[in-house]
C-alpha cells in the first residue's frame, strides 16, 4: 500500500509539547514536597520539586540545569520513561487526584535548553586519564558525559553508524523522535567526548589494545537481537527489533502484512503491534504463552495497545510457521495451561496435549526479548544468568573494566533511565579508582 499520502505521520511523537500556559499551570499545581517521593522513585533521583518550582518561577535555565545535574539524558528520559511506574507513579497527588505530569514538564525544560542552544554543562579540568566506552546507548553516553564533567578524556566506540543505541534505533518514534537522541549525543560530544563509529568490540576493535591504551574501560553494549524461537519456518518470521529500527530510520519502507501476529507480550511486542497497526495492518493479534497477569508489558502500555485495537491470544504457544513458498500463510499453535510458579514467581505455561490449532496470518513478528551479550565469554568476563557480572562499583572481574546498562540488568526491568543511572554511578566509581591510582 502507498503510505505517501497518509498525513500526518502515523508514528509521529504522540504527546505534544506543553505550551507555556500548560507548563506554568501544571508547575504551580506541584506541592513542592520535601524529600519528595517522585525524586526517590526516579532512578537518577532528579530533584523534581526543584526543577518544577523553577518552571513556575520562570527560571527555565535553572530548571534544565537541575535536571541535567542528575541526568544528562533528561530529554530522552522525559519522553521514554515509564513515568507511571516511576516519578509520576509516586506523586503524592496521584492517590486522590491527578499526579503531576513530571515527564512532560521535564521535556518542557529540556526543550527550552535545546531550542535555545544552551550549554549548561562544562567539562572538568583535564586529569590526563583516558577512558574507553564501548557502546553509545544511554549507559555509555551518560558515563561519557559524567566522566567529561570530571575532566577525564573519553573515547566512545560504537559498532553502529549513529550514536544513541536503542534511543536511536529501538524506541518507537511515537515516544521519541530520532533527532532528540542524536541531539543528546551531540551534547555529550560537545563536552569533548570523541566518538568512533563502526568500531565493534571483538571485530574491528581489539580488547587487549583498549586495555593497553586506556586507564579504564566501560562496557555499555546493551543486548542483542531477538532470540530464536526454535520452530520450523522461523526464517520467515520478522525480527521485531529490526522492524522497529526500520520504522525509525526508513519508515516508508516498512512492510506490514494485513493480518499480523506478534509473538510475545512485553513492551517491545507492544511496540511492534502498535507499529503494525498504525502502518496499516487490518488485524493485529499478540500471541502469548501465558495470561495477561504474567505479561511483562507495563499496565499503561497494555491499556494503550488495547485502545489501538490490538487483540490478544493468551495461553498460546507457536509451534510452526505455515508457508506457501516464501509466503507466510499461518501459524500453528498449541494451547497452554498455567502450571507451577517459576523462580520469578510467574506461573509456568504447560502445553495441553493434542490442542494444536492454526491461526491464519500473512506476517509474523517476534518480540520475545533480546539476546544476552555474547561478548562476555570472548573477553573472559564473569556472567550472571548470561548478563555481565559487576560488583557494587560496577566493576567486572577484570580490573578497571566496568560495565553498566542493559548488559548487566540481570534482574528487574531494563529502562533507559536505569541505564543513565548506571552510567553515572559507574563514572563515579571509575573516577574514584583513577584518582586513587594517581595518588590524588
Amino acid at each position, binding site marked *: 500500500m502507498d503510505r505517501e499520502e497518509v498525513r500526518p505521520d502515523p508514528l509521529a511523537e504522540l504527546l505534544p509539547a506543553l505550551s507555556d500556559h500548560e507548563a506554568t499551570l501544571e508547575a504551580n499545581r506541584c*506541592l513542592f*514536597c*520535601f524529600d519528595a517521593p517522585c525524586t*526517590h522513585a526516579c*532512578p537518577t533521583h532528579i530533584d523534581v520539586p526543584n526543577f518544577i518550582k523553577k518552571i513556575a518561577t520562570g527560571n527555565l535555565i535553572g530548571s534544565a540545569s537541575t535536571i541535567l545535574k542528575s541526568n544528562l539524558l533528561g530529554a530522552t528520559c522525559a519522553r521514554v520513561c515509564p513515568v*507511571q511506574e516511576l516519578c509520576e*507513579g*509516586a506523586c*503524592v497527588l496521584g492517590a486522590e487526584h491527578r499526579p503531576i505530569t513530571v515527564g512532560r514538564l521535564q521535556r518542557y525544560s529540556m526543550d527550552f535548553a535545546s531550542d535555545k542552544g544552551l550549554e549548561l554543562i562544562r567539562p572538568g579540568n583535564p586529569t590526563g586519564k583516558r577512558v574507553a566506552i564501548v557502546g553509545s546507548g544511554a549507559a555509555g553516553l551518560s558515563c561519557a558525559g559524567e566522566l567529561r564533567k570530571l575532566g577525564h578524556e573519553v573515547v566512545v566506540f560504537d559498532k553502529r553508524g549513529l550514536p544513541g543505541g536503542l534511543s536511536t534505533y529501538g524506541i518507537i518514534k511515537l515516544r521519541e523522535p530520532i533527532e532528540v537522541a542524536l541531539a543528546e549525543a551531540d551534547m555529550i560530544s560537545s563536552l569533548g567526548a570523541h566518538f568512533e563509529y563502526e568500531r565493534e568490540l571483538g571485530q574491528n576493535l581489539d580488547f587487549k589494545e583498549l586495555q593497553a591504551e586506556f586507564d579504564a574501560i566501560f562496557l555499555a553494549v546493551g543486548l542483542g537481537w531477538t532470540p530464536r524461537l526454535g520452530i520450523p519456518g522461523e526464517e520467515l518470521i520478522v525480527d521485531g527489533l529490526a522492524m522497529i529500527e526500520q520504522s525509525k530510520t526508513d519508515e516508508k519502507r516498512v512492510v506490514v502484512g494485513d493480518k499480523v501476529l506478534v509473538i510475545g507480550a512485553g513492551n517491545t511486542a507492544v511496540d511492534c503491534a502498535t507499529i503494525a497497526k498504525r502502518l496499516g495492518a487490518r488485524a493485529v493479534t499478540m500471541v502469548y504463552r501465558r495470561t495477561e497477569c504474567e505479561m511483562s508489558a507495563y499496565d499503561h502500555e497494555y491499556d494503550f495497545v488495547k485502545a489501538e485495537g490490538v487483540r490478544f491470544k493468551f495461553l498460546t504457544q507457536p509451534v510452526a510457521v505455515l508457508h506457501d513458498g516464501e509466503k507466510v500463510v499461518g501459524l500453528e499453535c498449541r494451547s497452554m495451561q498455567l502450571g507451577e510458579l517459576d523462580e520469578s514467581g510467574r506461573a509456568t505455561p504447560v502445553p495441553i496435549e493434542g490442542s494444536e490449532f492454526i491461526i491464519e496470518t500473512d506476517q509474523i513478528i517476534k518480540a520475545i526479548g533480546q539476546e544476552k551479550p555474547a561478548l562476555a565469554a570472548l573477553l573472559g568476563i564473569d556472567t550472571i544468568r548470561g548478563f555481565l557480572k559487576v560488583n557494587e562499583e560496577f566493576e567486572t572481574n577484570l580490573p578497571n573494566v566496568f560495565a553498566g546498562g542493559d548488559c548487566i540488568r540481570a534482574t528487574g526491568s531494563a529502562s533507559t533511565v536505569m541505564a543513565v543511572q548506571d552510567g553515572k554511578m559507574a563514572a563515579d566509581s571509575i573516577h574514584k579508582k583513577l584518582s586513587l591510582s594517581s595518588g590524588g
Partner: protein
Amino acid sequence: MADLSTVFAGIKSPNPFWLASAPPSNSGEQVHRAFEAGWGGAVWKTIGAPVLNVSNRYGAFHYGGQKMVGINNVELISDRPLDVNLREIAEVKRAWPDRALIVSAMVESNPDAWRQIVRQIEDTGADGIELNYGCPHGMSERGMGSAVGQVPEYCEQITSWVKNVATIPVIVKLTPNITNIVGPARGAVAGGADAISLINTLNSITAVNLDNFEISPNIGGKGGHGGFAGPAVKPIALNMLAAVASDEVIVRSGVPISGMGGISAWRDAAEFVLLGASSLQVCTAVMHYGFRIIDDLCDGLSNWMDSKQIESLNDIRGKSLSRLSAFQDLDLAFRAVARIDQEKCIQCNLCYVACNDTAHQCIDLHNAIGQVVPPGHDVRSNGKKEATVNRPRPVVREDDCVGCRLCHNVCPVEGCIEMVELPPSRPAVTWSELSHVRPDITQDWDAMKRYREETGIHIH
C-alpha cells in the same frame, strides 16, 4: 430561607451586597445590569472634581499561578462629565426603587463645593451620599481623598459641611493608609456622619519590570504607588473593621459600618458581618469575574445561615467582636498541639520541613515500625513502590510541640493536621495579671527562669 434584606442607616436593600464605588459602578448601563444580576445596591463611582485618567492604570499582583490576588490602580474618580453621571443616577434610581443607590463624591475641600455637589446628588433621588476620604493617589495631592482621611480634624470638618446641607444619609468612607483608623472614624462621627464605610485602597507598588527596570504597569515609562485591593487585603480590612466596630465612641454613636476590602465569596461576607459590618461592598472580585458572582454571594450566605439556623443578619452582626482580645489578655496557659491524621496525610512532608527548618523541630519521620528515620533515600532505591510503600510518615512529638500552628497552615490537605486543645497544665493567667503580681518577670530573665521552673514551663 434566611432573610438577607438589609436596612443600613435607613437605606433599604434586598441583600447586603453593594457594588463598591469603582469601575463596576461607573455608568447607568453597568449598574442596571448589576441590579438585573441581583446586586442589592451600588455605590456610584465617585463623582466630583474634573479629572483625566491614564492608560495602564490597573496593575495586578499574581501569586503562585493565582491571577489577581490583588489589584492596584491609579485610576481617579469618574472621568465622565458630571451631568451625564447625575442624569444616569436619576434614571437608575427611578428604574430600581427597591435597590440601594448611593453616590460617592469628592470635591475641593471647601464648603461651597460640597454644598453644591450634595444638592446635585439629592436631586437625582439617590438614597445616600458616600464621602470618599480614601483615594490614595492623584486626588490626595490635590488635597482630597486620603489627604482628608488621614487627618481626623479634616474628616470631622468636611463631614459637618456636608451634614449641614444633606437631607439623605451620609456615609464616610475611610482610608486604610493610616496607623490607627479609629481616629478618622471618630472624626467622621463627630462631624455627624450617619454611617462609616471601610476600607478604601492601600498604597502599593505591585511590580517592577525585570526587562527594563520600569515600574509595572508602566505609564509612559513611569509608574507610582497606586491603591491596592482584592483578596490580599482582606485580613487588613477585617482588622480595621474590628477596630472601628469595637471602638467605644463608635459603638455609642450607633453608626452602622459598611465593610469592604477583599470580599470575594460568601465566607468573606459572613466574616465581615460577624465583625460588625451591616452592609458589604465588593469591587475587585466583580472586576475579576463580573456581576454574576452575586449568585454565590447571596446563595452561599443564605445557605450557611440556614444551616446554622440564623434567621437574619441582625442576629449575627458583630457576634465575634466579643472574642477580640489584646495580647496581654490572652490566656498564657492555653495549650494546643498539632496532631496529624495519618489516614488523610499524603506525605508531602511540607509540615516536616516547615517545622524543622523554621519552627520548633518537633515533627519526626517514622518508618513502618515506628522508628525515627532521617529524610533521604538510598541512591540505588527507585520506582514507585519503593518510594511510596515504606515512605516514612510525619509524626508530631506532642510533648515538644509548642502549638505554633505553622504545620497546620502549610498542610495542603484540608483537615489533616488538627490543632488539638489539651487540658491546661497550669492555672489560667494573662500577661496583664502576671505582670501585675510578678512585675520582676517582665524585666529580668532570671526571674522569668524561676517562674518557668515553678510552673513547669519548658521551651526547648
